[in-house]
């Protein structure tokens, strides 16, 4: 789940009486679970909200390469190195599918990239946390990809065709990512004392940032209400967070690790765990740019883009020369 606090029209959901005839037909299609395709008519708010959401998701995949890329050259075995490389390569591929999906809405990848680099568009807050030890690579796979899957599985049913199809492909790969993360944690949790300590420390640091990935409670949010009505969003943030906690706590127990929450308790009545809210002040700080790694992450992307300008220009110049030579030869 790499989209947080995506703004919608800000006007709330229109009643049937307020809708234009086109809007009513559009809403009927959504309600009947008919996919919206790029050439179909759509309200401007739907288009804009989707661009924001898909764009933010794509940026998250791209920036998300960095915390894991941080450990590729230090991976402890050849097999772990190969798996991590494959995973980071997948993330770049996910970014590519998502940018392509966004492009069907009339925005270019370069436009979106520029908005990321200028700070106008965001990426998921989670990637502003550092990966300090090898166990963090396990925790990222287990918790961060786990939270992502929780959000993305329902998004396979999202109303916009290209987004839905991208999510179907992405989900297949994400479940492999989560398994490899859990596998790393397993090795660490059953390993030496130092490894166990690393694993617990990684859980301690990634638990609350993972809960933050779902975004603040949105039960009263007008943006979320509109996105839910358009099936751009399928579940509320709180529903997804609850599911994530319910799924993850038994996994932590199996590993013999302790979830860093004194208030964590099974609630028989609701059939789920009661748990502490993350520190939302910290979340808003991170979103504003004050997380531990915001500056580094953005600088790395800006550097890659700026230093790559001559490569993009050079390849473009070559393509133009070739095209000109082909025309001259004909």
């Amino acid at each position, binding site marked *: 789940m790499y989209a947080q606090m995506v703004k919608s029209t800000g006007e709330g959901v229109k009643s049937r009486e307020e809708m234009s005839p086109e809007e009513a037909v559009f809403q009927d299609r959504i309600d009947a679970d008919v996919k919206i395709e790029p050439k179909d008519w759509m309200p401007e708010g739907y288009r804009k909200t989707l661009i924001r959401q898909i764009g933010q998701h794509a940026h998250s995949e791209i920036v998300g390469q960095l915390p894991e890329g941080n450990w590729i050259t*230090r991976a402890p*075995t050849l097999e772990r190195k190969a798996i991590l*490389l494959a995973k*980071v390569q997948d993330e770049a591929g996910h970014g590519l599918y998502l940018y392509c999906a966004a492009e069907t809405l009339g925005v270019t990848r370069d436009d979106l990239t520029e908005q990321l680099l200028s700070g106008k568009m965001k990426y998921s807050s989670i990637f502003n946390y550092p990966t300090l030890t090898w166990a963090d690579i396990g925790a990222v796979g287990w918790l961060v990809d786990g939270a992502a899957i929780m959000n993305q599985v329902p998004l396979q049913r999202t109303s916009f065709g290209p987004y839905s199809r991208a999510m179907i492909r992405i989900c297949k790969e994400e479940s492999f990512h989560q398994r490899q993360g859990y596998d790393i944690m397993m090795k660490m949790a059953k*390993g030496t004392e130092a490894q166990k300590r690393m694993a617990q420390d990684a859980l301690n640091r990634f638990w609350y940032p993972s809960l933050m990935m779902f975004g603040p409670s949105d039960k009263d949010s007008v943006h979320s209400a509109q996105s839910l009505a358009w099936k751009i969003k399928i579940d509320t943030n709180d529903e997804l967070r609850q599911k994530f906690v319910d799924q993850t706590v038994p996994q932590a127990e199996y590993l013999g690790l302790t979830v860093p929450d004194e208030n964590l308790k099974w609630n028989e009545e609701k059939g789920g765990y009661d748990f502490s809210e993350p520190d939302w002040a910290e979340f808003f700080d991170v979103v504003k740019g004050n997380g531990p790694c915001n500056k580094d992450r953005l600088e790395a992307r800006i550097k*890659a883009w700026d*230093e790559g300008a*001559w490569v993009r220009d050079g390849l473009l110049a070559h393509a133009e020369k070739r095209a000109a030579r082909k025309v001259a030869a004909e």
Partner: protein
Amino acid sequence: MSADLFEFLCRMGDNCLILGHRVSEWCGHAPVLEEDIALANTALDLIGQTQLWLGLAGEVEGKGRSADDLAFLRDAWDFRNVLLVELPNGDFGQTLMRQFLFDAWQELMLSALTQSSEPRVAEIAQKAVKEVAYHVERSGDTVIGLGDGSAESHARMQAALDLLYPYVGELFESDAVDQAMVKAGIAPDPESLRAAYDAKLAQVMGEATLTLPDDRFAHKGGRTGRMHTEHLGHILTEMQWLQRAYPGASW
């Protein structure tokens, strides 16, 4: 014989390991998303090949060392990669030029090794040569695209070629280990690959409008272990850190 074969397999494996490491340093930092994917893919292939070559090296040596033991627990003097692959990435052009200079050699070497009298060597070569055929196509196309691109990209690619060409000669050096491999029908004489390599370089550099240096001076010592660059120690420091800091742990 097995000592020579072990040495030969370390040369093959260490080239893949060290170049794979270098290429993986790009992860998340490439000029365009497609290149991030391609670089990660190349690094992944090279690490996969490392597992095969060093795995076989450990088997041939017969002292119970695994591919991981060889990768993570040897010091610089035991590494047998050519100097070319341990050189820093530089800019994207330098990385792709290094890749092409290596790929063009590796493709010729692996093609010859598919006919090796040692079936385990032939088997690895058959698998790897398919991956490398794609690597050389891509790195060659990129060298051509950037060489025959803008004025700036042309100048950068020429500078990369001038910098790296003195490291090409080592790929074709021959010593007693190579002679033993030739005698046993396991591997070709490296020198025998040079003519085909020169032809490939002439073709690609021609299309790239780049000029091959006349001087054939060659830096060497990596594949015999006599001499490495100072860069190798830093690569190993990073790569081997976890294994060294937590000896005996299982990951």
